[in-house]
């Protein structure tokens, strides 16, 4: 079932055909999940596809949720060696678990906080050969923890995401984010969450089945395209 659902997901995202140039180039992909059904598997799958041996794609992984060893362990089971990819400069892992933006200045200083993170991402992509720029994926896991690191300032996180989005225009790379729907469901107006939906070109929701838990089927993933095609 997992194999089949992976293929359906690949097909939906255009990843079942050639993956160079990267089909998601220039796009913002937002993955939304809930406690009952984690969307991390979509992230892992996209990471595995991006680092496929048939391509020269590069992934920049911004981790707020888990350390490198966690992803390494999971990707090994999927047949991908993150350590060697990192050594070959195809996988850049930015460990943000300990990031704590200084109180009050909201990253005004470029030395710390999200401004510095943006600068680091920009520098990493610029250092690659120009031909590789459109094959770069920036993956963020996950946005709710980024908000925590920014002392709850969703505006600051939105500013950072805006600048990441300018990277997709500037370099034609892709941006993939994970966020948790149920964290914001109790708010009257979940502005931050809705902002992400407007920002995204492709929205992937992982949610539990209407019939409840099952041993072999874990959930369903409807995908909505919101894509403005010029021409």
């Amino acid at each position, binding site marked *: 079932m997992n194999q089949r659902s992976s293929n359906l997901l690949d097909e939906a995202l255009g990843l079942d055909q050639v993956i160079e140039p990267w089909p998601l180039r220039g796009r913002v992909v937002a993955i939304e999940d809930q406690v009952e059904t984690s969307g991390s598997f979509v992230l892992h799958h996209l990471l595995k596809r991006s680092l496929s041996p048939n391509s020269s794609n590069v992934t920049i992984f911004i981790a707020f949720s888990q350390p490198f060893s966690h992803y390494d362990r999971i990707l090994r089971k999927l047949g991908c060696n993150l350590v060697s990819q990192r050594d070959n400069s195809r996988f850049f892992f930015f460990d943000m678990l300990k990031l704590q933006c200084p109180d009050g200045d909201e990253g005004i200083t470029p030395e710390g906080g999200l401004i510095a993170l943006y600068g680091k991402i920009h520098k990493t992509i610029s250092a690659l050969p120009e031909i590789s720029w459109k094959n770069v994926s920036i993956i963020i896991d996950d946005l709710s923890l980024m908000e925590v690191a920014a002392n709850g300032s969703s505006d600051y996180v939105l500013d950072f995401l805006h600048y990441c989005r300018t990277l997709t*225009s500037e370099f034609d790379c892709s941006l993939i984010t994970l966020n948790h729907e149920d964290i914001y469901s109790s708010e009257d107006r979940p502005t931050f969450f809705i902002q992400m939906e407007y920002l995204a070109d492709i929205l992937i929701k992982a949610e539990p089945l209407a019939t409840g838990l099952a041993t072999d089927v874990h959930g369903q993933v*409807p995908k909505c395209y919101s894509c403005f095609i010029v021409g």
Partner: protein
Amino acid sequence: MAESIYRALRDGALEGELAPALTIKDSVASPFALQVFSHVISQLFSSILAGKSQSRGLVVVSFSRSPSFYLDLLKNKGTDVASSNKQIQILDCYSDPLGWKDQLAGSRNFTALSNEAMVSSNAIVFREVKHMDKLYNSIIELGKGLVGGGKIRFSIAIDSADEMLRHAPVSSVARLLSNLRSHDQISSIFWLLHSDLHEARVTAVLEYLSSIVASLEPSHQLANGQRGDLENFSLIKHNSKKGKFHVRFKKRNGRSEEVHIEQSGINFASLPSEGAINQGLVPKVQFSLQLSEKERIDKANVVLPFEHQGNGKPIQIYDGRRSLVDSKHERPVSAVENVQTNENCGSGEIIYYRDSDDEMPDSDEDPDDDLDI
């Protein structure tokens, strides 16, 4: 209705009056404001190039899309943008709205790319989006650079009001928009707004500042909290390509149209009758929920047992006793209420005897009106 919008923006402002202002409003359920906004830009710009509009230039203030998005949009509509930089300028609030790139370059953690540093002849980068006053001055300066001073006017397109509201308080944004509308060189101004990102009062403020409000709504409303439900998925898919486009003019109410979003562009069409839209949503049950034609005629022919039928004609109800007044105007009466206006009517009879002569005929007044609870 879409045509009326183009006409209003094309005709522009009358001397001494505020410039027409359009809000294009949507929500996540029907997120087509950007497509409509882009469509309005391309239509207005075509009029400007053809010399058919009051405005002689267009300033696009872009927050959520890069300048190249709009230049490519116009190029794909057949406009030679390279030679029209005297008619369109883009204030680029997208690339570096908060000056982060400048700060990083200053601390040597950043290498500006050579193509990034290239200044397009059509776009100027703006780095202080939190300061509405500076934004106002930059917009006016850019517009005057296009059309010169004097009486020649230009139009402004803002994408989007949400970003302005994120960076500045609503009062500052309202002041900016109001000042732009009152400037004697502004022909027309329009902006897009995602209504579900703001409190109702903020949306209301922007609507009050507008002379035209265009709202995009989903064709089919989904029940709350069921966006991800697979049973609603077909409705979501339907809503992803179509919506309702409702336009309201300050001076008069508008009508609704249906909007179709396709790969090649956008189409507006009159709404089909409500019955046709809802036909697919009527549940299939074993009894009939609709009236047949014969049933409808019979229903219209039923005479209600009231003393008046609401058609202005007084009806006499014989109460079984002749009062002194009535005896002077004796006419053949029977024990049957004489209110049948249609001779072909059925066989119903209502016999009503008044309790006393003092009893007033039934009136429309609510007998409980004088209760003081």
